């Protein structure tokens, strides 16, 4: 293709990315639009039918890719590996095959050393039907992720899907070099219903959606430093964020770990006594913290950058 049609094609792709909601898109649409046009190459695609060995025992429908898309492509001309979870299939949950595909990809990332991996999280955690196999998958992924980072590769997480990033997914996200999150993306380990079931409604009312969002949602994660970048819900915004994180995300060495330890210590000291996210925001110096949840994305990004510059020297 000559230069003019390529420029036209890229302009069309950018317009598509700006119009597309990350939250609404399927995992395949996210991957296709997120990467440079026609650059995605899938590993173990759906035609290979590597399906779950467990779901049929429970008389449950399978998906040909087991809800995990793994492969490589280009991001603004740079090589990246990419993994994407389909949040609508079994809540994006980690089963044996689903997890093994990410573990294998992380080992490829480790061996390639300098090519970053972008994980498009959308998960409720371990797939209960696959119990131990799912739990083991989480452990294997975390080990492989740390090995990839130790070898020098950056592993970046993007979170903005309908399942959020919960359970073992929240643990894996915590191991990443850096995260970008949208308002819809929630990050936590125990989900709202789990906390309420275990600790009672006094501890956490899972039906109080506003409470769920201000405790686990993207804005709060950005403000307390759990995510480096806050983005609005378009695929273009996630792409721009990932390109920036590929440049800025921290390496993985003793200095970074020490700095992360200090960051968490300081966070606990500063906010440990706060009963609610709103109290944290007030103590951070936000004048009208009650207005934060309703704030438009651009206004919030400006506020967050004023309150807390994103830092890349920890994790």
């Amino acid at each position, binding site marked *: 293709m000559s230069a003019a049609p390529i420029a036209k094609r890229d302009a069309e792709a950018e317009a598509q990315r700006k119009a597309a909601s990350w939250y609404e898109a399927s995992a395949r649409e996210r991957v296709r639009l997120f990467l440079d046009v026609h650059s995605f190459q899938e590993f173990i695609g759906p035609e290979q039918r590597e399906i779950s060995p467990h779901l049929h025992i429970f008389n449950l*429908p399978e998906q*040909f890719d087991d809800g995990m898309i793994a492969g490589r492509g280009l991001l603004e001309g740079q090589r990246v590996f990419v993994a994407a979870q389909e949040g609508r299939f079994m809540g994006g949950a980690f089963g044996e095959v689903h997890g093994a595909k990410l573990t294998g990809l992380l080992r490829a990332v480790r061996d390639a050393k300098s090519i970053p991996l972008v994980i498009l999280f959308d998960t409720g955690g371990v797939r209960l039907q696959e119990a131990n196999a799912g739990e083991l998958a989480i452990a294997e992924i975390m080990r492989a992720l740390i090995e990839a980072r130790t070898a020098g590769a950056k592993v970046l997480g993007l979170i903005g899907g309908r399942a959020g990033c919960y359970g073992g997914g929240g643990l894996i996200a915590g191991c990443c070099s850096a995260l970008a999150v949208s308002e819809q993306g929630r990050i936590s380990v125990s989900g709202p219903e789990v906390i309420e079931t275990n600790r009672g409604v006094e501890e956490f009312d899972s039906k109080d959606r506003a409470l769920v969002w201000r405790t686990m949602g993207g804005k709060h994660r950005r403000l307390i430093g759990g995510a480096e970048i806050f983005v609005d819900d378009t695929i273009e915004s996630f792409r721009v964020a990932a390109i920036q994180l590929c440049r800025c995300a921290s390496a993985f060495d003793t200095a970074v770990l020490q700095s992360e330890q200090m960051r968490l210590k300081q966070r606990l000291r500063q906010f440990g006594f706060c009963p609610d996210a709103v109290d944290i925001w007030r103590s951070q110096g936000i004048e009208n913290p009650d207005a934060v949840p309703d704030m438009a994305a651009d206004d919030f990004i400006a506020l967050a950058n004023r309150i807390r510059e994103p830092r890349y020297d920890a994790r």
Partner: protein
Amino acid sequence: MEALHFHHKVNQRAAGTKVMAIVGVVASGNLEVLVERILPESDCELDIKTAAVGFGAVWEQVVADFVELRSPGGLKLSVNDGGARPDTVALRLAQAVRLIEELDP
């Protein structure tokens, strides 16, 4: 779960040269369709696994309509269904064929 299989003779091959396409997600009321160009041009096959048991007659009608309308010669369609309604099934089958008929980049 119920497994269904349909085989049709068709007049025309599906357009294009792409060998594989996939559309949809397996969820409640939704389905995925994997379409592969691996059959003789006069044949079309559908392998269906559905969570909704006992609707074989409805599937037969939907598939017959689809084959008549699209003439998907040479294509094998594999379906994982989470209990979608017939209109959703018809839409996904049509989307799958349209995708595999698209020009290769």
